[in-house]
């Protein structure tokens, strides 16, 4: 568990994002309940959680749209509330729910937002319009949800920013456009930009993210690289053995052994994998399959679901 990362702090580098113990309440609701989140420069950070977990609220605190009740927040070395407008010259943002001025065209919206940020890259603007197959001459009110999303994406990706805050940026996009989006994010990463990618689509985060934070009810419950997170959880082992592997349940770290027609299935803590496999060998292994937990399983485990398959 890498929840509080101050122990591994790299003092020399200014973190792209650092949220410490952020609390934000709306009336009775604690939308953020002691949230810690750190994003290092140059990384793509997956920010995962279901709807209502607090992802958008955290991003809006980072943008200075909402003021945290308590805790400390820094973004690109500045105070997101106090220095909002100045910081935003280095930030590009895609909101979770894109609302556009109905009587402006998509092209006009892209230009307006670009100029308000302090200018956009003409070459990238043309390239992104082309890659996302967006017609810039249509009035915003006639765009579908997917096309409104594309307007916000093109506006953000045409910017040369240090930090990209993307709040569920692919909702409403079709699979082809989703693939195009993933290519664009990988390009940003190779150009050295930092990306905070909020999502509830795990495959997206799995494909793009260097590190992942899982948020639940306003708190980050797990944070780390995918490998670290996997290491902290259990591997599923499925084996056919010559004699029934009856004793396997007694090995330290083995959970939920199930026997069926000479086949045994169990979960084992990653630290005890070695011991479990040695014990298994004594029963005469005929076939062996083991797979690390998918992100899906990590995620569901955090939400207290039963994850045995």
């Amino acid at each position: 568990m890498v929840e509080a990362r101050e122990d591994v702090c790299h003092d020399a580098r200014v973190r792209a994002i650092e949220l410490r113990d952020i609390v934000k309440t709306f009336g009775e609701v604690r939308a953020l309940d002691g949230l810690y989140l750190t994003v290092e420069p140059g990384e793509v950070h997956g920010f995962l959680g279901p709807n209502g977990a607090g992802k958008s609220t955290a991003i809006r605190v980072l943008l200075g749209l909402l003021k945290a009740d308590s805790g400390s927040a820094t973004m690109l070395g500045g105070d997101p509330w106090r220095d909002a407008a100045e910081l935003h010259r280095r930030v590009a943002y895609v909101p979770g729910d894109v609302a556009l001025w109905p009587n402006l065209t998509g092209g006009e919206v892209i230009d307006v937002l670009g100029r308000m940020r302090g200018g956009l890259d003409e070459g990238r603007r043309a390239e992104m319009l082309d890659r996302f197959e967006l017609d810039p001459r249509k009035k915003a009110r006639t765009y579908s949800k997917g096309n409104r999303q594309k307007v916000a994406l093109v506006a953000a990706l045409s910017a040369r920013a240090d930090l990209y805050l993307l709040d569920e940026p692919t909702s409403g996009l079709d699979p082809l456009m989703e693939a195009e989006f993933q290519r664009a994010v990988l390009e940003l990463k190779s150009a050295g930009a930092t990306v905070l990618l909020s999502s509830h689509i795990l495959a997206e985060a799995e494909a793009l993210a260097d590190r992942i934070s899982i948020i639940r009810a306003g708190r980050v419950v797990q944070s780390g690289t995918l490998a670290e997170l996997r290491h902290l959880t259990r591997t599923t082992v499925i084996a056919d053995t010559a004699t029934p592997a009856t004793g396997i349940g007694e090995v330290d770290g083995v959970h939920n052994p199930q026997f069926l027609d000479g086949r045994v299935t169990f979960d084992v803590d990653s630290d005890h994998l070695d011991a479990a496999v040695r014990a298994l060998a004594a029963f005469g292994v005929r076939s062996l399959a083991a797979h690390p937990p998918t992100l899906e399983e990590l995620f569901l485990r955090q939400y207290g679901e039963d994850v045995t398959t």
Partner: protein
Amino acid sequence: MSGFTGTMRLVRLALRRDRITLPAWTLGMAAFLAATTAMFEDSYTKHPELLAPDTQIVVENPGMRVLGLVTGPTVGGYTMHRDGLTLAVLAALMSVFAVVRHTRQSEELGREEMLGAGVVGRYASIGAAVIVALAANLVLAGLLGLGMIVAGQPVTGSLVAGISIALVGVAFTGVAAVTSQLASTTRGATGLAAAALGASFLLAATGNMLGTVDSAALRVTSAWPAWLSPIGWSQQMRPFADNLWWPAGLSALALGLLTSGAVLLAGRRDVGRGMWPERRGAARARPSLLSPSGLVWRLQRGALLGWAIGLVGFGLVFGALSEQIGGLEGAATEWYAAFGGDADLLGAYWASMMQVAGLAVAAYVVTLLLRLHHDEAQGTLEPVLGTAVSRLRWLSAYAVNALVGAALLVLLFAVAMVIAGGMVLGDTPSLLRDLVGAALVQLPAIAVLGAAVLALVMLLPRWSVGLSWVLVVFAIFVGPMFGPSLGLPSWLMDLSPFSHVPNAPAVSISPGPVVALVAVCAALAGVATLAMRRRDLALPA
């Protein structure tokens, strides 16, 4: 399954959605009519000998005939001439908004698709929208009639008057049903219906202007163009004089034909599309759009143009009337003298007209500044504040547009009055100097109201729209236009910023009140700025 299956269920849904909107429209209009009727009733009870001469003034002036059809020397008829056009336009707008809201807007926002998948016929939403609008007009007819009866007018005349106004709403219910099929957007459908309303007004106005006057100069008979217009039909019922019922048939016929047309069109098009497709726009933004104030200008320029046309029109009419004012006697002169605060009747008249324009422009400023709240609540503000634009800069963009727009509108009104007044009176240059000064002196009071709206939007975002309009109505009613007639105490009248506007050109402009208004405006703007910096954005859920 019939095309109208589910209509009544949609009616219940629509009534539930409109449970505040429609009562507010109808009650507001009835209260306005009852209050003004009571005012004229009171004034002519004190001076009954003035009713005939006042009617003659209106009848003999083609500019005044534009505003309505004079049917004879009665208080009810006189009131209908003064209020009839305003009420007819409001009834039409209420109906247009209601029909478009439940047809085209539902489609545009995708609600129709959800309903269309249920047990709901293709024409059910048109049917429901028409039924709801008709019900609203029925209630409106009753409330308007009741308002006039309560204010002491004859029962039959009052009921005919109420019905005649509501019939304009009925005809435009049909118009909006058709425009909702033609245009593919809410704005387009509303705009087309508004254009039809404008044409309807012009036809009625032309018909009355070209109409024949009887020998006593007490009643007008309209020329043929008035018979081509729903507003004209409504006026031909001649409440308080002839009380004719049959012109109502014309409006009913129009509703029937237009609604059938709408149903035919609906059968020939896809859900979500109009008969006329949406036009494409520019691929790139013009340089003038690339700043916050340029963007705000673009967002409100259509509305500003509409207001400008309206104010120029009224400026020309009121300017042309300057000639008649010198001949006024009795009660009307008292009102202008009380308003203008001087024995110089013409100066008092100009001062009062300029104040009326000031009130109208204040309403424009309020609608513009409330967009700040709509931007915030609908989510269009979020991407803007995600850029390097600060909150203060966004607020300033609106404030600058409000001030420039307000200055433009009062000046256009003044220049229009000068052009028309100069033609009948001569001496245009000195008139121009006087009226431009009188126009600019309205701005501090307008700015106070605007700054109050900003403070409300920043302090109480969720309540700001309602409270802002309450503030406008309060400022108008306790102000100089109604305050003295209602006999309000001076401390109450002093609460309206408009009570402190110098009555230029009747009296010279003294700096004291202007400086005080500017100071109040600055204080309110300061409150707005402080509140804005402290609070969260009121974001959509």
